[in-house]
Every structure is written in structure tokens, then in C-alpha cells.
């Protein structure tokens, strides 16, 4: 053969010889190779759009933020109660129009700056005051309120420094009863003022906080964090934390089973049984979870302006079957939007499926045989892993009662927009709360004030009675009174049936068997400060 052929063959042989070096069962992700340092690889479905806590509104940004930053108070690991973090003590004034926090001593940001009252105040003032130098505005645009601040912290009038370790909040009206939970949100992360001074572009891409992990860098969609050796909570057991994006849940889980990643942020319902049966994998679940899925009926449109039709729909839906098939038995049917376990949940007895009664109500309302369209989203959501299956089943359920349902699928963005603008008759939607409190469900999703497009109250339910109860609950401080008011409100909503609450969806995650100290937070994004990984054999 010619020399060229010989050389070509040699190259091919070399390549083939190198192949076995990469083949075989994939080694441990990141591995314990580099001198005994542990790397933890966590797979999630999407990238983080921004890393400025004041701006972020999505869970993927939050995942990075909760590990790099601290807040004044935080949710206990694995629970929904609040405990000290950067603040070690707090005291509210009697008229509830002021609150002082005492800060932890000796805490420094990753860039060395001290985390003192001035730093904390700068963080809150920049969100409150549109003219603050650190309130980042796009060039040529008027300043806009930060998303969470506007919604939740509207009553904060001022934040001020009392002394080096004391911060004071002043309110324009008595503060909301769940104010501490609000402070635990990732949007209240304390950012280093030195970093803030470097401008919007810097903070969005280089988070500098006081948290358990420091920012290392980004490789496309892959984000790397390193352990903060001087964290006030103790050095994390993991040296390197890597977040990777694996769009399909099945793909991510396959990588967990083959050892290419150490943890997966969500499990497809179908994968849960096999994951539980696999000794190399640990499944983490939060029993009922906070995400809820519901079938919204547009109360402004026929035939759903008639309460009998709405009750008929509520009677026709077969929730247990839905939970069993479309959710693989993982979700819990709910009678009210507020899931069990959340403060303010009322244990109402749900309607049992009664097709005959549903039909009778429809006949009475002269709505039998009406054609309606059910809109649903084409992308999986936290509360609806398989929207197509849910929509299909709802269609069949309603057909049994006598309503002809046509399905309409849209991309998530278009679907949400259409529903917020009231273009639907029936629509599938859901909600993941920002705060584990009944207010964040009932007020946001059912109060008449939310019924203006782009509405969160996509049922366009406008009940004065309901509004009165929820508004009173917002001002009540006695937990017993709040619960009573919310229970009444939920009963009103149950009778009026503006929407049909379907299921509450648990959060699931999975880690490799050698991972210890990973607890799934019901409220917060996963935190890795207390997680460790057993050294794996190569």
C-alpha cells in the first residue's frame, strides 16, 4: 500500500486505540481525582438568566443565588420555618411599624468587604429607592421597580443604619404578618457593595455574597462554584459545585444512573418508581409540595358565568384518576388552592365525582352539548409534567358529563399570555408560590384585584365577599384569626367554584447513593452547604 494509505491507517489505528480510554462505564462525575477534592455535579433543566438577586424571578437563577448569597433570615434546611442567618436577632415595635435586626458579627463578603449594617441597608435601599445609585436601570430607560420588591415590600418606607450591627426597617403601615418569610426570599440576598459599585453588568454575571460557595465562572451553560472556606456556617464539605443544564428529565436521570452527574433537580413521574428501586440512587421528595395545578374557567365568558355550569365541571373531573395516570400517583388531589401543609390551608371535603349530578346541573343551565375550548401549554411545568395527558383526561371527563371540549395547545409563553388576557374559556394553569402562605395563593389567584389583564386571577373571579375575607386576613396578626378568615374564604371559593383545583405537586429530586446531607427544601431552591459526597472508587 502507498505511504499515504499507511499514514492514514496509522492515524485511524491511533484513534481507535485511544477510544477505550474514554469508553466503559463512565467514571464518577467530576470525580475525586484532582488531589482528593470533591466535585458535585447537579443537573437542572434550564440555564440561569440572571444572577442579580433583585432582578431574578425564576427558580433557576434562585438555585445559584441561594448558594452564593445569604439573607437576613433563612428557611431551616428542609423546613418552612424561619431561622437566623445574617441577622441573629430581631424585634418588632408594638405598633408593628418598625423592626430592628441585629447582625451577625465578623461576616465578610467573598471579596473581603465586611458585611455590616451599611452593606445591608444599601441592598434594601437600592431596591426601594428608584434613584439609588445601585438601582440599575437600562440606559435610556426610566427606572422600574424590581419585581419582587414592588409586589411584596410595598409597605417598607425606609431602611436605615442604627449602628454597625443594627439595621432598622420602617413601614408606612403595619407590616405584613409574614414579613420574616419575605426576608428569607432569594430576592433579599445581601450583595457586596463593592460588587454593586462595579455596575449592573458585573453583578448580573459575578455574584459576590457571603454564602457557602463563591463564584468561579461559567462555561456556556455550565456554572461552577467553589467552597467558601471562611463561611460563618462552616466550610462546606464539597469543594466544587457545578450546575449543568440537561433539558430533558429522562436524559438527566440517565446520567444520574450512569454516574455522570451526582444529583438531578427534578424527576419525571415515570422515573420515580425505578429510581426508588435502584440502590445506587436516592430519591428525595417533599410530601405534598407547594405547586398546585388547576383548571381555570373564565367566569367572564359563557357558559362559565353560570355557577351551575362551574359546579358541574367541578363534579365531572376525576381527580384521583388524574393523579394516578398523569402524575403517576405522585400528586395529591386538592379541594382548595392552598395545599395541605401550608399556613392557612382549610381541610375541606372535596366533591366526589358524580357524572349524573353534573349532567343534571348542565341540563338545568341549558348547557349540555356546549362546545368549549380547553387551552393548555406545550411545555412541562413544575405542576404539570405532562400537560397533554392532563388535558386529554380532562376532555374525556367533561365529555362524560356532556360538555364537548376541544383542545388547544400553545407554547408556554403564548399560552400564559392568552390566559392572562382572558382569551380562554377553559385553561390549564398552575402556581408555585413565592411564600408558603395562603395569601400567596388566594390573594394572587382569586382576588378581584388580580382580575385585570394581564391577570394572575385567570378565572376573573370577582367576589366581594371573598375579597373582604382575604383583605381582612392580610391585616390580621393573630394566627387563629387568620386561619379562620382563610377557611371562610376557601369555603366561599369552593361553593362558587370559579376554578377547579386539581392536584398539589410534590417536588422531587434524586442524588447518587453516596451523597449525604442533601435535603429537599419545600420552599427554597436546593442548598448544598451541608451536603457531602463519599469518595468514589475510580
Amino acid at each position, binding site marked *: 500500500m502507498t505511504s499515504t494509505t499507511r499514514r492514514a491507517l496509522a492515524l485511524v489505528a491511533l484513534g481507535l486505540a485511544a477510544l477505550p480510554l474514554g469508553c466503559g462505564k463512565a467514571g464518577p462525575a467530576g470525580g475525586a481525582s484532582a488531589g482528593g477534592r470533591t466535585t458535585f455535579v447537579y443537573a437542572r433543566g434550564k440555564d440561569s438568566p440572571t444572577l442579580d438577586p433583585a432582578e431574578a424571578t425564576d427558580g433557576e437563577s434562585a438555585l445559584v443565588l441561594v448558594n452564593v448569597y445569604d439573607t437576613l433570615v433563612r428557611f431551616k434546611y428542609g423546613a418552612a420555618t424561619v431561622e437566623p442567618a445574617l441577622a441573629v436577632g430581631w424585634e418588632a415595635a408594638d405598633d408593628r411599624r418598625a423592626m430592628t435586626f441585629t447582625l451577625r458579627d465578623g461576616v465578610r463578603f467573598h471579596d473581603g468587604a465586611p458585611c455590616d449594617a451599611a452593606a445591608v441597608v444599601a441592598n434594601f435601599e437600592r431596591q426601594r429607592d428608584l434613584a439609588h445609585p445601585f438601582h440599575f436601570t437600562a440606559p435610556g430607560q426610566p427606572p422600574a421597580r424590581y419585581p419582587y420588591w414592588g409586589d411584596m415590600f410595598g409597605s417598607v418606607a425606609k431602611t436605615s443604619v442604627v449602628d454597625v450591627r443594627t439595621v432598622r426597617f420602617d413601614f408606612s403601615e403595619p407590616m405584613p404578618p409574614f414579613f420574616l418569610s419575605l426576608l428569607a426570599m432569594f430576592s433579599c440576598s445581601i450583595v457586596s457593595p463593592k460588587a454593586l459599585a462595579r455596575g449592573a*453588568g458585573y453583578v*448580573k*454575571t459575578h455574584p459576590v455574597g457571603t454564602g457557602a460557595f463563591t463564584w468561579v465562572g461559567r462555561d456556556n451553560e455550565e456554572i461552577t462554584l467553589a467552597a467558601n472556606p471562611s463561611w460563618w456556617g462552616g466550610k462546606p464539605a464539597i469543594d466544587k459545585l457545578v450546575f449543568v443544564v440537561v433539558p430533558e428529565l429522562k436524559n438527566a436521570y*440517565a446520567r444520574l444512573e450512569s454516574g455522570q452527574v451526582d444529583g438531578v433537580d427534578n424527576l419525571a413521574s415515570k422515573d420515580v418508581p425505578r429510581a426508588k428501586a435502584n440502590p445506587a440512587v436516592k430519591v428525595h421528595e417533599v410530601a405534598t409540595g407547594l405547586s398546585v395545578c388547576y383548571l381555570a374557567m373564565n367566569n367572564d365568558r359563557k357558559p362559565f358565568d353560570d355557577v351551575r355550569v362551574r359546579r358541574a365541571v367541578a363534579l365531572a373531573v376525576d381527580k384521583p384518576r388524574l393523579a394516578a395516570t398523569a402524575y403517576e400517583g405522585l400528586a395529591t388531589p386538592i379541594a382548595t388552592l392552598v395545599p395541605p401543609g401550608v399556613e392557612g390551608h382549610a381541610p375541606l371535603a372535596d366533591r366526589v365525582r358524580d357524572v349524573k349530578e353534573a349532567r343534571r346541573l348542565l341540563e338545568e343551565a341549558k348547557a349540555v352539548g356546549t362546545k368549549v375550548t380547553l387551552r393548555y401549554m406545550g411545555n412541562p411545568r413544575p405542576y404539570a409534567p405532562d400537560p397533554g395527558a392532563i388535558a386529554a383526561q380532562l376532555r374525556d371527563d367533561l365529555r362524560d358529563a356532556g360538555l364537548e371540549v376541544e383542545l388547544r395547545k400553545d407554547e408556554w409563553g403564548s399560552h400564559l399570555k392568552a390566559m392572562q388576557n382572558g382569551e380562554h374559556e377553559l385553561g390549564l394553569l398552575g402556581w408555585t408560590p413565592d411564600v408558603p402562605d395562603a395569601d400567596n395563593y388566594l390573594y394572587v389567584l382569586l382576588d378581584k384585584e388580580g382580575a385585570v389583564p394581564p391577570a394572575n386571577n385567570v378565572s376573573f373571579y370577582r367576589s366581594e365577599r371573598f375579597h373582604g375575607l382575604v383583605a381582612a386576613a392580610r391585616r390580621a396578626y393573630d394566627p387563629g384569626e387568620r386561619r379562620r378568615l382563610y377557611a371562610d374564604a376557601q369555603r366561599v371559593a369552593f361553593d362558587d367554584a370559579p376554578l377547579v383545583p386539581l392536584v398539589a405537586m410534590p417536588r422531587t429530586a434524586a442524588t447518587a447513593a453516596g451523597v449525604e446531607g442533601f435535603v429537599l427544601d419545600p420552599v427554597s431552591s436546593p442548598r448544598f452547604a451541608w451536603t457531602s459526597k463519599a469518595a468514589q472508587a475510580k
Partner: protein
Amino acid sequence: MSGAFGYVGRRVLVAVPLLLVVSLVSFALTELLPDPSIARLGQHATRENVAAFRARKGLDDPFLARWGRFVRDATTLEFGEDLVRDDGTTVGAGIRSRFPATFELALAAMLLAVVLGLVAGALGAVFPRRLADAVAQVFALVGASVPVFWLGFMASLLFAVKLEWLPHPDWSLRVIAPDAGPGGYATRFLFLESIARLDLGAVGRALAHLALPAMVLSTIPLAVVTRMTRATMLEELGRDYVRTARAKGAPETRVVTRHALRNALIPIVTVTGLQTGALLGGAVLTETVFAWPGLGRYVAEAVRSGNGPVVVAGVFTFAATFVVVNLLVDIAYVLVDPRLRRGGAT
């Protein structure tokens, strides 16, 4: 000589307005895409947030103003800001960081298809109408008939899960070259750079991770290459010079490889260029199945989330690649075929 270079030169001149029109069409197409503010801000966004976001990104400006901005951004090759990645990342940076992954995947798939296709086609030409021929042809055709994503499932099920011969493709520096030292690699061409650095471990890992998606993607051009090889080789093997060579006593393998195959390469090169379009299209589906961090997946997701600038820039990049490859094929054609070089009629 001038005839040939004039021909190529004309093709280059035509390419520029072509690409401009392509970008205009795709820009117009982004008008129809969903609103990106939902993808970026999530369900909890208020009307105020959405309005502020849209104003900040200039999404409500008139069409011509936006088109003008795009052209201006295109000249810097940054193509403006990524709408969904709201941290100032430019689309250009996003494309530059993902293009190498698609390029290496397409390259691997094309090489695989060419090698396998040459072998299969040659076998078919040398033993026409026998079992080997039929098997080769059917094999190639079946590959082109099976949906790429189904093939992807089945292949990963077989090789990555059941047999555990190959890993699930995990194309990142951390996995391919973990010992790359500080600063990592200079480029994102993980495979090519690992070869250049003679890092055998990295080369092996790169091949292992490339194997599955490249195999699946190669089925697309495979059928065409096989058929082309077989047809041209049959033609060549029937020619006089082959008969002469045989009469002179040359061994059959020599006749096949040195003569027939060599001459069959010209149309194969042409076909390869033309298949780039199909290959890039197939890359989109393949990248989605395997979670490959390439341009195809980037643009496909951008279409779903309404990330206009990414769509336009991505389409532009694909089209430009297609045009450049075809241009290179034309040049290679002109250089290889002596008849063309003399400026004679094509």
C-alpha cells in the same frame, strides 16, 4: 485559469446578498415568534415588569428600527443581546461558544458517513447484485428512513444503558479534559484541540462522547454517499482504462482503490458539500435528543422561547456555513478537475 477563478469569484459575490436576504427573511420570521418576556421573567412577572423588560430590549420599536439595529449589531458580529439570558451576554458570544460543538459533531458524522459509505458503495460496485450489495443498499436506506430521534433513543438505550459501552454524551471541558490545567483549552473545539495537544486521554474521551450522536447523525448522508459511490464506481469500473489495467495484470484491489475509487471521489466531494444542509438540519434534532451543547439546540430552543436575536443570528450562521462549505466544494472541484481548470465548459 481566469475562467475557473472567475467562476468562483462570481459565486463569492453572489453569496453576500444571499446571506443578507436570508437574515432579512429570518428577521421577519421572528415577528411571528412568541413573546420572550415570559421565557425570561416567568409566570410571576407583573405587567410593569413585562413592560419594563420590553422597553429595555426595544421590542416594541417599529420593524425598521429593529432591523437597522440588527444590521448594526451584525457588523460587529455580536448580533445584539440574548433576550432570555438577561445578563448582557451577546448573541454572538453565545453562538461562538456553541458553534464548535456542532461543527465537531457534523464533522465526525460526515467523516463516518463518508468512510462507511465509501466502503459500502465500493462493495456494492465490486459485487453488484449480490447479497453484499443488497445488504449495503438496504442498510443505508433504512438508516435514512428511521426518524433520527427514535434512532437516538434506541442507540443510547443499547450502547449507553444496556451495554454500557459508551457514556451519555456530556460535551464539556470538565468531562473531556479535566486535567487541562489552569485556563483550560484555548478554543471550544474540544476534539480538535485535544488532538493538537496530543492529550490521548482527552482524545479518547472525546471520541467516546462523540460516538453516539455522530453515529446517529451520520445516517442522514450515509444513504446518499453509498448510492453515489456505488453508481460512480460502477461507471468507472466499466471504463476502458480499467479494462486496460486489468489486462496489464494489475491486482484487482489496486484497480478498485487506486483507479476507480480515486476518480469516484470527485462527485462524492460534491455530494458531501450538498449534504451539509441536511446534516445541519439533522444536527438540530440530534442535539436535542442527546442534550448536545451545540448551535442547533440553541436555536431550536430560541424559537420556542421567542428569543428573536438568537434565531436570526443562528439561522445566519447555519446559512453562512452552508454557503461556505458549498463554495469550498466548488473550489475543490475546480482544482481537482483539470477540465475545469483550463476554463473549459463545465
